């Protein structure tokens, strides 16, 4: 396959950022990193952006598209946002903190990114103040307003088996008379990172007909009558991309109408074709060199939804770097980095630790509490590291006592009305109940759908609440949470691996 290549010259480490200002293949000026809604650029078949670790590549299978009037790229609602506002190509089709801050500094509150509805801590706050947008500017978090009582995947009200009280509300939105829990239209405001719009072949793949965590078959999309993977959105509130985009249209875009069938078709077409992965590392060079298979093209050509433990091992893309071929004569740093990534892949698959008190792993499914396993236990999908089964798991990132201190986030007290939660008891303190806001089940408090692991280098901070400011923060959290006692070398190997994805 050949692509009309639009590629910024990335010659070596240290030149990446500089390359932004240089000319592309045809000598034209490089476009701004930020894709402004409705600006009408061509989205090329191959696109690269630098980041702190190297270069991210985006491959659009089937060739370039004209984004003029494309519903993913043009404003659809009255706040001036488009889908691309929060799913920026340079940020791995998510949204990085540097991009957010750059828009604030260059455009300010007039940029639709900072729309009052969810680009501020609460719509009722004075919008011209930086402090009213602090969760977005300082933590990369978008406000997500969930109805209370909860509504399920089909929008049907659910009678929850728990009560929720606001303990702390630094945003002011949960106690707000117009937007809060006691308003005429009660909602709970939680704050989350935008998930990447890419690699959906994998995110939507169904490896098995069942969800072993639920002890049930995969959920059925009420619109199509067909089963779905259950891996969309942090709290699983939408079962399909169509459902997700409708919800986003109603909320994030503040559309005054529903997306029509043609708009949905065009967005789905774009989303089905886009693959994102890191392509080049500052130190390690091309990630598909010396037998390695990094980069998005491997994603585009591989079958999705395969269990790594029974087929292609997770991150075996870098297995070749375990061998002598990884050695770059005269470049010890590059050689060492490649070997580190290969070790990181092994650690990811094989370095076991005790996983404890994590709903979705240690309950209800009978793996045991504790269970000894490795990262690839849950991050088990070949090429992608997602969960082949629907991946709602409580890592403790939002639930006390495991969550890191987060005074900027709201804190809720959940009281279970029926059976206590298996791991927390009857009362749970959480900054985001996660999946429980969709199911209404106390047992699901803090369960969050696993993140995709591709293009990580371009889209810090991490975890659904942005609690890990960088890749090392992810590893350090796991190390603390599960008492893994990774060595410093193991941590660095894992960081290098994550940066190569």
């Amino acid at each position, binding site marked *: 396959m050949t692509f009309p290549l639009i590629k910024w010259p990335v010659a070596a480490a240290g030149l990446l950022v500089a390359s932004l200002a240089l000319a592309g293949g045809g000598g034209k000026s490089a476009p701004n990193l930020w894709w402004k809604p409705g600006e009408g650029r061509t989205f090329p078949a191959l696109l690269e952006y630098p980041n702190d670790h190297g270069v991210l590549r985006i491959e659009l299978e089937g060739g370039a598209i004209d984004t003029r009037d494309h519903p993913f790229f043009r404003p659809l609602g009255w706040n001036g946002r488009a889908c691309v506002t929060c799913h920026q190509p340079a940020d791995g089709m998510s949204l990085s903190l540097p991009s957010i801050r750059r828009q604030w500094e260059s455009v300010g509150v007039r940029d639709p990114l900072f729309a009052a509805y969810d680009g501020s801590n609460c719509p009722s706050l004075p919008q011209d103040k930086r402090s009213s947008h602090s969760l977005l500017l300082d933590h990369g978090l978008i406000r997500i307003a969930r109805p209370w009582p909860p509504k399920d995947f089909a929008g049907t009200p659910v009678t929850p088996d728990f009560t929720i009280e606001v303990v702390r509300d630094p945003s002011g939105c949960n106690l707000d008379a117009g937007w809060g829990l006691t308003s005429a239209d009660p909602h709970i405001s939680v704050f989350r990172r935008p998930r990447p719009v890419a690699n959906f072949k994998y995110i939507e793949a*169904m*490896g*098995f*007909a*069942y969800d*072993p965590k639920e*002890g*049930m*078959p*995969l*959920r*059925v999309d009420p619109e199509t009558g067909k*089963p779905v993977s259950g891996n969309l959105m942090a709290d699983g509130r939408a079962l399909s991309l169509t459902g997700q985009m409708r919800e986003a249209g109603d909320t994030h875009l503040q559309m005054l109408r529903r997306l029509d069938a043609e708009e949905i078709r065009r967005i789905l077409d774009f989303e089905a074709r886009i693959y994102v992965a890191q392509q080049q590392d500052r130190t390690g060079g091309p990630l598909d060199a010396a037998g390695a298979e990094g980069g998005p093209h491997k994603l585009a050509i591989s*079958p999705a*939804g*395969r*269990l790594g433990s*029974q087929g292609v091992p997770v991150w075996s893309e870098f297995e070749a770097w375990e061998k002598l071929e990884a050695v770059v004569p005269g470049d010890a740093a590059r050689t060492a980095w490649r070997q580190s990534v290969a070790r990181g892949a092994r650690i990811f698959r*094989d370095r*076991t630790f*005790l996983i404890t008190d994590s709903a979705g792993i*240690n*309950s*209800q*499914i*009978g*793996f*045991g*509490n*504790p*269970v*000894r*396993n*490795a990262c690839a*236990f849950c991050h088990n999908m070949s090429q992608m590291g997602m969960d*082949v089964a629907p991946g709602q798991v409580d890592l403790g990132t939002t639930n006390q006592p495991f969550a890191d201190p987060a005074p900027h986030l709201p804190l809720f007290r959940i009281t279970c009305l029926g*059976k206590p939660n*298996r*791991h927390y008891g009857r009362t749970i303190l959480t900054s985001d109940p996660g999946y429980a806001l969709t199911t209404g089940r106390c047992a699901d408090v803090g369960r969050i759908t696993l993140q995709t692991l591709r293009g990580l280098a371009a889209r810090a901070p991490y975890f659904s609440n942005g609690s890990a400011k960088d890749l090392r923060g992810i590893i350090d959290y796991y190390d603390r949470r599960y008492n893994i006692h990774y060595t410093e070398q193991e941590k660095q190997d894992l960081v290098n691996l994550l940066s190569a994805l």
Partner: protein
Amino acid sequence: MGASAMRALAFLCMMAAFTQSSAVLAAELRFIGCPVYRDTDSGKKSGCWLADDPMTGARYDISLSPTKPDWNFAILVEAAPAGVREDGTDIAPCGGIVLNPVRVSVLDQPCTRAMLPAEGYPGRAFLLPPRNVRPLYAPHDPVPQPYQARRFVIPFDFGRDFIIYQLADYYIDKAVNYALDIKAREVEITGYAATAPALVSGQSIVESENLARMRAERARNWMLMRGVPEDRIILKWRGTGETLPDEAMDGIASASLRRVEILIKP
């Protein structure tokens, strides 16, 4: 004392307790106790689960149960007489008399969590159990004709309607696939619960008849969500029935009181 000497002493103590419990072993082994996790490391899922029978003091290795314990909760342990390794030769992996097959049900009673170090025991390297659901992308053998009525038996843990991973899911997957493959004319689902009180380790345990209904409904939902037409499904439930010798029960009679039977007619 070295690790091997400690293991030998532990072995002798356990075998002494085991000999004292020989009267129990003539019948099915059932007891309630708090689980103990032994942190062995032979790779993923290689940790050991142990539990002591309060009536005999014998320590059993229950690691081979499809459902593993939760160290915060008491467990019901069940094994058929044939599932107890009387010669003790399998004691080495974890430091308990090996029960295999064995069933563990997690109860709601709290336990103090307890973890032992490996103490020289290796644990077991994980092997994919033979009863596992195959992925959707794996080849699926067509059902040979002529189609016949077939009965499938789905086991459940005590007090639960959850589909047991790598046991119940294997059988219900077979049932669903069979119903779909032969375009079943009728799918009769009958749920059972152990509604007759039983005395185990000095405790009376019993299931509600509502659980029989919940199990049947869960099986029905599996059928519906996989595409079996609702008008083909007949739903029934009842309390304690007869025990049922079926491969899904591994010869554990008491476990067979907690089941769903699915009769599929072409």
